[in-house]
């Protein structure tokens, strides 16, 4: 009996064959066009022609739509539909719970008792120590002097054979607040170590796309002054500490008359360094003149305390395991 019953249920469960929808020949044509793969055309020339034709049609349609939007904006003015925002990797980044709310009291108090707070709370004037790696080539020195021109109250030292721990000891005794050490590989700047003194964090960056002042066209000549500092898009908790470290390299009150600006712009975890002067051609027109070097930084690690490669504790240490998707960022 039991077998019979199961058979019956099975019969009930069987689906009826679906009736095919009737399609008009026009619809069929459209569908063929939509799902047609141009790679199936074996003749290369015809294949190429077909693809270019499709591209052209798409372009024509886009221009039509754009013209329509422009007209609407002209006629309706403020009542026109809002502008469409492009979808980028940066705008569709993964949710991060460490993104800082600037009104959060806990984080404000945490920042006030930080290692870097001697600059922000007490108003200590920074003094920066710049060196190269051991056994430098002569190519690195122009780059070091370019950085020296961007950062006021800084000095370039010959590295000799001193270990980083020895330099830290010397610099703390001489009242320096920061150390910048630039490493090179195949005569090009490769990495930067930024140590905050006396017991602040140390950050290790990778340097890429470094351009010296000498190699740039249409550059201006920087003047000794305190530049204005712009720090863009450092949103997370880690990004805040990095931004505070970078800000503490420059003196508090900028010379607005000299009109020089240093920018650290963070985009997808890459920090772009630029150095500009803004020039008023007329009261309404402003233009930018580029000075100094260009380079981009990427954070490799952030260490608690001064430099100690082996025994030090890391606040952040980049591993390939952390790069789980293209839309995950840490700064």
């Amino acid at each position, binding site marked *: 009996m039991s077998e019979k019953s199961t058979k019956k249920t099975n019969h009930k469960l069987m689906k009826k064959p679906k009736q095919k929808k009737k399609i008009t020949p026009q619809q069929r044509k459209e569908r063929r066009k939509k799902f047609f793969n141009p790679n199936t055309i074996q003749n290369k020339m015809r294949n190429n022609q077909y693809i270019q034709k499709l591209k052209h049609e798409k372009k024509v349609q886009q221009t039509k739509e754009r013209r329509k939007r422009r007209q609407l904006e002209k006629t309706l003015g403020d009542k026109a539909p809002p502008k469409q925002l492009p979808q980028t990797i940066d705008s569709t980044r993964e949710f991060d719970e460490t993104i800082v709310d600037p009104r959060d009291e806990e984080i404000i108090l945490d920042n006030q008792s930080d290692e870097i707070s001697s600059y922000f709370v007490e108003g200590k004037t920074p003094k920066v120590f710049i060196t190269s790696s051991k056994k430098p080539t002569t190519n690195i020195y122009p780059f070091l002097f370019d950085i020296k021109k961007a950062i006021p109250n800084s000095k370039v030292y010959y590295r000799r054979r001193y270990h980083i721990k020895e330099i830290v000891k010397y610099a703390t005794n001489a009242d320096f607040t920061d150390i910048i050490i630039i490493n090179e590989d195949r005569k090009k700047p490769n990495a930067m170590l930024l140590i905050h003194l006396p017991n602040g964090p140390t950050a290790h960056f990778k340097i890429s796309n470094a351009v010296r002042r000498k190699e740039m066209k249409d550059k201006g000549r920087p003047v000794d002054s305190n530049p204005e500092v712009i720090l863009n898009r450092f949103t997370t*908790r880690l990004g805040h500490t990095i931004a505070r470290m970078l800000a503490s390299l420059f003196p508090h009150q900028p010379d607005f008359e000299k009109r020089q600006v240093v920018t650290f712009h963070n985009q997808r975890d890459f920090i772009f360094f630029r150095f500009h002067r803004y020039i008023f051609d007329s009261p309404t027109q402003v233009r930018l003149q580029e000075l100094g070097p260009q380079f981009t930084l990427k954070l490799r690690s952030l260490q*608690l305390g001064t430099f100690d490669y082996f*025994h030090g504790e890391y606040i952040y*240490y980049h*591993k390939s395991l*952390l790069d789980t998707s293209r839309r995950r960022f840490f700064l």
Partner: protein
Amino acid sequence: MTAFQIKEPISQIRVDSIDQKLLSSGGNDNILKVYDIETGKCVFEGQNEPNDELDLPIPIWDRDHKWKTDSNQVIIVGTSYGDLRLYDRRLENNLVFSKKVLKRPLNAITVSRDNQSVYAGDTTGDIFRFDLRRGKNLGSFKGASGSIRAIEEHPVLDFVACVGLDRFVRIYDTVSRLPHSKLYLKQQLNSLLFTSQGKLILEENQKEKISSKSFSKNSHNNKTVDNLDKDLEDAWDNLPIADDVFPEGESSDSGSVHFSDDFSNDENEDENENENENYNLEDENEISSLDEDENENDN
């Protein structure tokens, strides 16, 4: 109250897990020592490894150490040079074994519940599990990116929680070694402790004489409680008694419907950083035996 001096510098101080009468400390250039709390005298001093080929002493830097949970004789040490060491107080040559297990310092250590293995945390956020007999690597727990300051294993369930400089509490499953959940807590965190929930369950059982099986099943579904001990006790007083949960018509076996594998409330437990309740060994043994009984009945 007695006051006595300990040799500095110190990286960690621990108390032994059975009668809390011994105190152990170690640090940079300061090898592991055990003191008697009542007299204040040094009872035991660890030995270093023999000198190397050039007859130079091997440097000492103890980062973290823990007592075994079943005896007050054996101590496990993680050093800053990546060594895992095991000391036995009863032996004349008290360093039983020392093995270089990692390239980086072992920053935090805990002994597992069964005393067979050790969980060790790195300064870059890696957690490993090592066998205690030979120091063999039994697998890693991934996900953290900052130095680990403390690891702790759940007294009853198969979970390990860690805390560190990346401001997260992370919980891992010890069987599958996969991350179970994480919590962002805004501060750089130093230590964590699990509440001794299993112990409380047993106390309740002895008082009210409820069938142990049904109550322990229920306890997983109930919400865990916030920081203070008082809150914990109040909450346990207000809990429904097992008879209320199961109406008379149902047998105790049907109670297994209420039991679910949802431990999402475990996250709240880890916030109890300041709590200092020591977990009794006897209770633990009883609980583990109870759990086994359950499994048999379910099958």
